[in-house]
């Protein structure tokens, strides 16, 4: 097991090198340059020339690449063109916000999606099955910016149950430490802030979790249906076991592998930052930030961000692979 983890982590290195090269090339091959974007309408030839020189964009591509790799090997991702802040600091500032939102979104998705899928499969073609699969279909195809705006309009403006957006209210005594606000407020025993933070999390987490919830529900249902047709399930019933036991102990455990795969993949995707949800709910996370960086041609941020995301994705996948062994004893990692 331990050796396996080490092996997988070592395999991360070539993946990241590959990603670094590809990202560098893609980023530098897309048309447009950061100096131009930064100066906007004010971009005269002289001003551009001067700015490019200062940013080191006048060097040839191989020279820039060599500099990039050299810095990367020292663990230096460079500095943002927009703000001149180190890339690592910019990313670490925003990743916790994304992590927190993704975590609560996936919790919502799993705790609603899995039971819905199970119930649907138990009563195949019943009204509940049809209804929940219809909801799931709508959920998968729902444009999230629309859903998010509707949530804000209904629950914040009209009903006033939840705050419309942001991570925390104005005027609260609160000092971010880890930038995971839930954890920070617990660490400071600041339960007013904790309540406020959780309150702010509900709408964006549900909006962000809706699509994964729908995907998980559909996957759970089909995976369960397949297992429920197996001979050993019939045997279990024949032995006189109760339906509850058969479903939850015998069927669900075996249906879990594909469900875990889907949950893991969805979580990995969410961690890359959800552009739409973050935009609508003014969530200061990675997704919106990376898209802004692409528009501004902030090369170091885009490179660093994608590299970071690739690393996170690989690690999430590793955790998923390891968790297979927990539900299926036939799977062992040597």
């Amino acid at each position, binding site marked *: 097991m331990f050796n396996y983890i080490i092996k997988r982590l070592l395999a991360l290195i070539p993946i990241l090198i590959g990603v670094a090269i590809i990202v560098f090339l893609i980023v530098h091959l897309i*048309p*447009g*340059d*950061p100096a*131009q*974007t*930064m*100066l*906007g*309408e*004010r*971009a*005269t*030839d*002289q*001003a551009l020339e*001067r*700015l490019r020189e*200062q*940013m080191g964009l006048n060097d040839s591509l191989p020279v820039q690449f060599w500099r990039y790799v050299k810095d990367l090997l020292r663990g230096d991702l460079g500095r943002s063109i*927009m*703000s*001149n*802040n180190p890339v690592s600091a*910019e990313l670490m*500032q*925003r990743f916790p*916000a994304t992590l927190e939102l993704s975590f609560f979104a996936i919790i919502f998705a799993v705790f609603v999606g899995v039971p819905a899928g199970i119930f649907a499969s138990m009563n195949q073609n019943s009204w509940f099955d049809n209804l929940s699969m219809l909801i799931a279909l709508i959920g998968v195809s729902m444009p999230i*910016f629309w859903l*998010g*705006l509707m949530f*804000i*309009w209904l629950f*914040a*403006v009209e009903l*006033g149950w939840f*705050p*419309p*957006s*942001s*991570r925390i*209210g*104005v*005027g609260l005594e609160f000092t*971010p430490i880890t930038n995971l606000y839930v954890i920070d407020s617990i660490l400071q025993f600041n339960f007013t802030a904790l309540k406020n933070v959780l309150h702010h999390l509900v709408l964006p987490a549900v909006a962000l979790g809706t699509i994964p919830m729908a995907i998980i529900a559909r996957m759970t249902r089909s995976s369960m249906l397949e297992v429920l047709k197996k001979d050993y399930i019939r045997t279990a019933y024949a032995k006189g076991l109760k339906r509850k036991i058969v479903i939850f102990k015998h069927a669900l455990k075996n249906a879990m592998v594909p469900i875990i795969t889907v949950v893991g993949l969805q979580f990995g995707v969410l961690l890359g930052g959800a552009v739409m949800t*973050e*935009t*609508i*709910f*003014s969530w*200061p*996370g990675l997704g*919106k*930030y990376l898209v*802004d960086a692409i*528009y501004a*041609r902030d090369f170091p941020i885009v490179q660093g961000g994608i590299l970071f995301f690739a690393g996170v994705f690989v690690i999430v996948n590793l955790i998923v692979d390891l968790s297979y062994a927990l539900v299926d004893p036939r799977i062992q990692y040597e």
Partner: protein
Amino acid sequence: MRKITLTTFIILAVIMSMFVTGVMAQEQGGTLVFGRGGDTVGLDPIQVTDGESFKVTQQIYDTLVDYTPGTTEVEPALATDWEVSEAGLTWTFHLREGVEFHDGNPFNAEAVKWNFDRWRLEDHPYHIGGEFTYYSYMFQGFPGIIQEVNVVDEYTVEFVLSEKQAPFLNNLAMVPFGIASPEAVKKYGEDYFKNPVGTGAFVLEEWRQGDRVILKANENYWRERAYLDEIVFRSIPDNSARFMELQSGSIDMMDGVSPEDVEAIEESDTLKLSLRPSMNVGYFAMNFKFEPFDDVRVRRAFNHAIDKQAIIDAFYAGLAEPAKNPMPPSIWGYNDEIEPYEYNPEKAKELLAEAGYEDGFEFDLWYLPVPRPYIPQGKFIGQAIQSYLSEIGVTANLVTYDWSTYLDKTDHQEAPTYMLGWTGDNGDPDNFLYVLLDKDNSNNAYESDELHEVLVEAQKTMDQDKRVELYMEAQEIIHQDAPWVPLVHSTPPIALKSMVENYIPNPTGTEKLHRVWLSE
């Protein structure tokens, strides 16, 4: 008995005075939450170029001279008065005494010199942390036209220029040239942009990147202390979400109001609208290098063919004014005598026929790929222009590129016709006319020697009346040559809760908020 009357009188007086102050006087205190589309990039004003940063640094820093609220006229700020030498090359500023930076260090001539040296000298030890873009832009490179900055005495500083610059004062009033505490810049080095220290009405309390900037009132401000105790600038990227925040009451004011929300604000009892005086122009340019746009009759025909007011009603919710000059009326020297080319398709057709194009022609119309303050919906406005031109028998093919490619290609005169615009920097006519239409700068190969002479003379003239005259003449030349169809000067709307009082938007795009107060 007498005692009772006296007591009653006193009580009455107290009640009266409470009533009077409650109605008349500005109220101290409170937090203003300002919702805007993006976060601040940095808080060192000389290193940034974006409005979201300037909005905040405007509160933290002061400049030597400032714009009078709501205008682009210059008034004293950190400098109380100034003289310029006969030749226009030496400027002497007398500085305000007793001003302190937020860190307690004194503001004086040394501090002013240190700031300017840091900006203009590339070998200065603190010429770090960015590109000093606005310095090199306004003063033409490093060290640019500011040759020397001399400390005359503790509160007098002298600037020696290498050439005359008529808009020099207007330039010094710009937000990027806010004076920073030298000790703070030395202390924080590359991280100064997160730890700004100025002399302004507000002090940075906390900046949560991507989310909000929190400012607290400066108790030692050299003007009167701000009415507000605190300002929170929140980034709320989505326009609709931001407007819903305002409706639900979680923010007090916002900019970037969508045209479709204007009606709801006008009808609301709790909200109000404030229009920023325009300091921009959105235009449609025709490139002289491409036939038939080298023919002035064709260019004038286009000017007659487009109904600007209809475009404004459809895409700006009426919140803009039709342009007849390349610069907005908020800027001094605006030539209001000019008779605009009226919307008249028949006349346009006649002009085209005169030029030999009665059967029309086909060309590429480049439309803006991104929303800009002067043209918020490039594609739709492009389509509107396309349909107006089809009415006079001309076929326009809509073309666009990503923003930076668009800028690059238009800058290199590759576009036959294109939409673009400009937001002024310093409120000087030079910043529109010379920057956009002089033969050395124009993007559409418009090269008028007559105009060039007038514009260059205006740059070297220190006499204000003479300058006004020259710019009036310049606008007349441009009107005759019709290198563009000037489309609009937009007046960006700002939505506020009714209780936000005394907010005066400035044409330059940002304003100090220390005189704003809350009436509840």
